Structure formats: C-alpha cells, structure tokens
C-alpha cells in the first residue's frame, strides 16, 4: 500500500488496541496499521522487539508514523527505529502528539495519500509546542 502506515505504542495493550479500533473506524483498511502494548511479560510497559514487529507490520514505502503515550513508549520507539536502521529508519517518525487523537488524525490524513511529513505535521498540530 502506498499510504503512510500508522503504529500505535501504548504501555497498555488495551489502550493500544482500543486506539487502533478507533483508527479503523475512521479509515478502514486504507492505512497500514499496527499496535503494540505491554512489556512483553504480561505487565504494563513497552517493548522494543514488539515495536519493531509493529513497524514491520505497518510498513509502507511512504513511511510510518508512530504514536506513543508516555515517555518510555517514546524512548523505546526511538530505540526501535535506531535498531531497524537505514534504509528504513529515516522514513519512520515518532510523533509528539496525544496517542488517541494523534493516531486518528494522522491516519485520516494518511488515508488521503498525504506524505509522511504531512501526516506527522497533522499529529503535531494537536500538541501545544
């Protein structure tokens, strides 16, 4: 698919899955979408390996925008991007935006064929700078 992909990374699998449901309601299957949540051991947290897997699943040559909740999700997502490395890393951006609103807005923008930069900018508009 040529649309930008969306990855949702929450400390809670329930939040991540619920956010993904809300995104699907808006964009159906027009946007590659993946989510992950939890520390990989049944607890709250985020997991680099799971994030790398979600990026693979939502991969698009147009790029991938990642929406995160709290700090550890951001740090682990940035680590995942670094471990994936080039040539894909520069096409993956961790957004600074609220996770639910950001994911829905970014996906809606992506479904219209917007570039990664435009998708990320739409999410960033939700965050007071």
């Amino acid at each position, binding site marked *: 698919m040529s649309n930008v992909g969306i990855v949702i990374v929450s400390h809670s699998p329930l939040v991540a899955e619920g956010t993904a449901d809300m995104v699907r309601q808006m964009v159906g299957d027009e946007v590659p979408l993946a989510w992950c949540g939890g520390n990989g*051991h049944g607890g709250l*947290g985020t997991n680099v*390996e799971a994030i790398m897997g979600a990026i693979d699943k939502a991969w698009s040559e147009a790029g991938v925008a990642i929406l995160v909740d*709290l*700090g550890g999700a951001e*740090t*682990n997502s*940035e680590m995942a991007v670094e471990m994936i490395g080039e040539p894909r890393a520069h096409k993956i951006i961790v957004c600074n935006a609220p996770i639910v609103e950001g994911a829905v807005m970014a996906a809606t923008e992506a479904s219209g064929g917007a570039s990664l930069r435009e998708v990320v900018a739409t999410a960033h508009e939700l965050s007071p700078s």
Partner: protein
Amino acid sequence: MSPGTLEKNGTRDKTATLDKTGMMDKLDLKTLISVTADTIAAHAEELTALDQAIGDGDHGLNMKRGFEAVRAEADTFAIKPLPDALKAIGTKLVMTVGGASGPLFGTLFMALGKEISAEPDRANLMAAFGKAIEAVAARGKSQVGQKTMLDVLQPVHDALLQGKTGSEIADVADSAADATVPMKALRGRASFLGDRSIGHMDAGARSTALLVRAVTATIEGQA
C-alpha cells in the same frame, strides 16, 4: 598501592585487570556479569520502592529481568572481544528490560562497546565512558541536574578522570545518588509530580550507583 587497582600511578595508567593481561579476560567478564546481576537482584525491591514513590514502580523488576537475561547468556558474551560483548549486552538489555530503562542502560553499554578498544587503557576507557554518557543523555533527551542516572554517571566519569580508586569511585557514585534526593525531576514519570518529586532518590541513579560499586569492587578484587 596494590597493583591492579583503579589507581593512576603515573607509570601505568591502565585499570586493574587491564594491567595484568592487557584486556579483560573471559573470566572477568563472566564474573562482572554475575556480580552485577546479583547486585540488581538483591536490590530489586529497593529499586521498585524508590520508583513507586515517584514513578511507575517497575524499575526493580525491569532491571532484574534484563540483568538475568544477560546472565543467562554470559558464556556467549564472554567469548566475544570486549567491544562486541558490551554491544551485545546493551542490545540484550534494550530487548529485555522494558520501560525506558531498557534503552537508557542498553545505550550506555552499546555506546561503551562502540567506543572502547579491545584492549583499553585508562585513557580509552575514560573517553569511551564519556561518549557513552553523551549517548545516554541524547537517548533520554536529558542532562545532568534533572534527577536521572546522568547525575551519577557524570560524577563517576569525573572521578575516573581524577584518577580515584575503585572504592573511591563507588563512594562518589553513592553520594551522587544521594544528591538526587533534593533535586526536582525534570525528565521521566517523576517529572509529572513536579515539586513532589523532591525528597525522593531517583531509582535510576540508585541502580547506576549499585552497578558502579559492583563493577569497581569486582575489578579491584580480581586484580
């Protein structure tokens, strides 16, 4: 001054084990892995309690999981050259710790592995450690004074630079962790609490100090 301490004696300025063999021998790395894992396991509840006060309360368990995962593969790491071993340990921590501590401690070891030579002298060790601290700061978008592990790492680097002994460096690390108590957290979950983060020790600073003592004691003890 016993041969093989971290002391800088003018004629040899390599660290203990390094003096003896020119590089960390296999046993040393295995012992280091085992001792650091023991330390983290022994203090897991304390670290969790510190994190519960001003964070999400998973630091002890997360660190224990990561260092046990490293211990489980100690044999594999120990046969690698030092730079590769450190990078592999860092990657293992990234993948297993969970929480922000994974990337932060993982980056410390990965960056150390990237910068250190296979047979490091004290100058190389100090330079590599300095670069590793920069990498951790970049990963956490943080700096000294924000109530984080950097508040221990930087004084430890300074102590290394000043040629202090291993036990002196460990004392510096403990004091530095204590010094995070009156600080206001500016990064991580604790920063959500604002002024209420004052009066509690940063869990990451404490775990860093524990690791520093375990490593320096092991190196001096083996010399």
